């Protein structure tokens, strides 16, 4: 019989689910005039979820026969994905109104997706991981195609769904293999069995490889990255922003937990492999991004490259590496959500202006928004006093701690390459004369402004005072 403390530990997911259901219910009974309350309501739900997360952390421990565990690590990621949800809702409400879509499903789907991610963050067991991943993914598939009259949305959702299901199948197959070879699906138990030795290494490696394939798809690591540009390009801009940080952060949480906890004993066999994937991901992401003319595709490739940087931290396979990955994901969440929010504002109705060149001269028409975009781009480049810089710094510091000298040097050179395409956005915004898109650009809506300014504030705060977040991440990191 589960104790009340155990219910407390899943209370955040319960609250978010209830709010999601409530939104769907209200959609049916309310008339069109009152639909403005969906966004505030979903934010209230997320705020309640955040509060419950903090309450749960007061009394950490496992829940439901070790299926879930509330510890620093899971709390960090729960807070992260819920924070992402709040910013995503702020940046999308104006967008949805502009596109003439006022349904509550959007917000309910965001909440359900976050429920899944939150479960992934807290899962201590492979079946729970799978369930969390599925909840998060299915909601995300629908979100990617949310504007159903738009063919690009349809294409995006279908691609995401087909490739995503395929990847999940790999993950599930890996789960089966590891269950077959160790007799358990609990991460700690798997670790214990692997430590005693005796399992055929080929069996365990196959299981690890299959699971890595599934997760590599979710984090868009090379060679499973090809869906990301198409999906990010086709999905509504705020959704692209959400997809590039929320599900990705949760997938990294799982990746870190599975590989550092369960497969920790056989680290020497997977480290060289992830080393190669990390390097390939950085290189493919950065060099492909250089060639892009569509800003959403550019940011998609950039998010591939950033997954590569975080994989460097995974390769380090240390407490410092895990903490660095956590910090990086937090900084990246603020930065990328902000960037996509600006994109969704600049692109205007129907996303007419999504070419990099369409941003010409926006600094002269909307100096504040352009300045915020500059902060995001500088953070993505990794210029000091932004969260992105400290993220990179901690990652490569952890990598050097683990003697990954070559990966560090190649990774840092990669980020110099990356500077080129981020600068292009600054070039067109600041150095070109205003073009068609910049003329008559309406002022940004209040909610969007809140999202952009909050994201910029987060980016800069993490760049000037990183200690608080990093200290928490270091304590919470998997060792």
């Amino acid at each position, binding site marked *: 019989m589960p104790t009340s403390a155990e219910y407390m530990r899943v209370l955040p997911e319960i609250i978010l689910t209830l709010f999601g259901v409530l939104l769907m219910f209200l959609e049916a009974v309310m008339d069109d005039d009152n639909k403005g309350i969906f966004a505030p309501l979903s934010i209230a739900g997320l705020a309640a979820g955040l509060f419950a997360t903090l309450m749960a952390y007061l009394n950490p421990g496992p829940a439901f026969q070790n299926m879930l565990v509330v510890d620093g690590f899971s709390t960090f990621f729960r807070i992260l994905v819920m924070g992402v949800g709040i910013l995503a809702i702020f940046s999308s409400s104006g967008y949805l109104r502009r596109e003439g879509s006022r349904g509550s499903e959007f917000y309910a789907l965001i909440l359900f997706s976050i429920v899944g991610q939150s479960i992934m963050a807290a899962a201590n067991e492979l079946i729970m991981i799978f369930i969390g991943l599925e909840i998060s993914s299915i909601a995300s598939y629908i979100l990617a195609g949310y504007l159903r009259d738009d063919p690009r949305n349809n294409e995006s959702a279908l691609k995401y769904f087909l490739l995503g299901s395929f990847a999940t199948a790999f993950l599930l197959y890996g789960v089966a293999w590891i269950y077959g070879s160790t007799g358990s699906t609990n991460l700690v138990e798997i670790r214990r069995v692997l430590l005693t030795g005796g399992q055929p290494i080929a069996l365990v490696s196959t299981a690890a490889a299959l699971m890595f394939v599934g997760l590599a798809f979710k984090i868009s690591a090379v060679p499973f990255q090809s869906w990301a540009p198409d999906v990010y390009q086709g999905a509504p801009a705020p959704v692209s922003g959400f997809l590039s940080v929320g599900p990705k952060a949760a997938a990294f949480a799982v990746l870190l937990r599975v590989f550092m906890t369960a497969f920790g004993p056989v680290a020497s066999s997977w480290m060289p492999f992830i080393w190669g994937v990390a390097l390939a991901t950085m290189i493919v992401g950065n060099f492909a991004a250089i060639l892009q003319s569509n800003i959403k595709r550019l940011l998609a490739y950039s998010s591939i490259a950033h997954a590569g940087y975080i994989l460097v931290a995974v390769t380090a396979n240390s407490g410092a590496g895990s903490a660095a990955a956590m910090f990086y994901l937090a900084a990246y969440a603020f930065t990328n959500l902000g960037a996509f929010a600006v994109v969704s504002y600049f692109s205007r109705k129907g996303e007419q202006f999504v070419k990099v060149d369409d941003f010409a001269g926006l600094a002269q028409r909307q100096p504040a928004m352009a300045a915020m975009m500059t902060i995001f781009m500088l953070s993505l*480049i990794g210029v*000091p*006093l932004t969260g992105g810089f400290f993220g990179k710094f901690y990652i490569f510091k952890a990598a*050097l*701690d683990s003697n990954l*000298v070559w990966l560090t040097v190649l990774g840092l050179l990669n980020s*110099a390459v990356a500077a080129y395409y981020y600068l292009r956005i600054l070039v067109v915004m*600041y150095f070109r004369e205003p073009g068609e898109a910049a003329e008559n650009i309406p002022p940004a809506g209040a909610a969007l402004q809140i999202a952009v300014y909050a994201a910029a504030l987060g980016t800069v705060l993490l760049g000037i005072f990183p200690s608080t977040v990093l200290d928490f991440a270091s304590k919470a990191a998997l060792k």
Partner: protein
Amino acid sequence: MSLLDVVLFLPLLGFFVLLMVPKANEQASRIGALVISLVIFVLSLGLLSPYWFATPTGYTFSTNVSWINYPPIRYHVGLDGLSLWLVLLSTLLTPICVLISWTYIAKRVKEFYAFLILLEFGLIGVFISLDLFLFYTFWEISLVPMYFLIGIWGHERRIYAAVKFFLYTMAGSMLMLAAIIYVYNQSGTFDYVDILSKLRSGQLVFEARTQMFLFLAFFVAFAIKVPLFPLHTWLPDAHVEAPTAGSVMLASLMLKMGTYGLVRFCLPLFPGAAHASSPWIVALAITGILYGALVALVQPNMKKLVAYSSVSHLGFVVLGIFSFTQQGMDGAVYQMLNHGVSTGALFMLVGYLYERRHSLEIAAYGGVATPAPNLAAVFLITTLASVGLPTLNNFIGEYLVLQGASQANFTWVIFAALGVILSACYMLWLYQRAFYGKASESVSHHIYDLKPREWAAIIPLLILMVWMGTFTQTFLPSISAQNAQILESTRPNQAAAFLNGAEVNRAR
């Protein structure tokens, strides 16, 4: 909170203040920028007080407080004989740059001055940081405003130049970041002073191979900024495309970030590797001296000519540093300041000409002395200072560098001295073509003499040229004392530790 902190953070405050000024009121941003930068300059003069009558040892005005707990990154700044003059040069040139941009910058005025003041913040920070991480932070921050200065207010190919400038520096500084992290992992601290004392006490030893890699990582970052041949190719583009104020800040101060880094970090941290690499570095420096001079000789474009002359002049600085002699180092640091003053002035004067005639081609001028005698006279003094006429500033620096180099290896001097002769050729030839001869109709139509505002901007630099050429005692004692310390830390016992690094390592 010391005066130094005030001088450092006032520009940042000024940046935000300028951003608040309403966009339409352009005059307000000009006056605001001038007032802010003048206040900073006047305050910065207070930094001289400990150095005026004596030469204090160690760092003055230092502040050392924790910034980030873990890894322990500290806000540790301080001033010594090396950084003092570079800080003063920064605070002096900023108001001058405000003045020379008064009419030159006609569009997006407010942003221009905001970026200019932000650049000052980055530059001062670079010159006073005593924490490797803090240094890196300012090093990168200074990049951003300069990128915008070139990219928004530059000439036709400004975008290409701005991106090239950013990427070159970025590529170099990434290697430096890797090296900084590596040094931290070995030493457990980013604090420059701590690292040095650990090196001296033998607590921290970089074995030969590692030391060479670390040295190279730092060196490449600095060499790109200097710029040392063959990493100089971004410089002519950046200079030609930048607005006048951008060129002045770039030549006078940003290039000094590189040479400052060499003196401050490369030599004391990695003395053995620095000694071991000096032959090829000197070879590159001398190649740069001659190459820069020869290319300058054939330039039809005035600004490009001055830009290549910078490559040549900075070659002298590197030569002086890697001669590892007291005179050579003194000359190098002195030459850093000289180049800041005289090349800064040259860029300003070229900018004055451009504002009148709207051309940088030397062929578009000729006979300028007739309609503008005062401008011609000022240009002549600056030219003579630049070619190293005794009693003017560059002579002292070049002489000391050559003397130091001759102590190390006399062959170097023969080649380097050729550079001095060539500099006289290209500068005087430029002067002759632009200012003498019969003024064509378009020249006499467009060219007018110096205005009071232009006088005000150039006079401080003229005074400095004479002052630095005659009263070296104002500057040299503090510089020498600092260089003596740096040389001491690169003395043979340290270098020997490098050569025996393998044994030391085994002994551990």
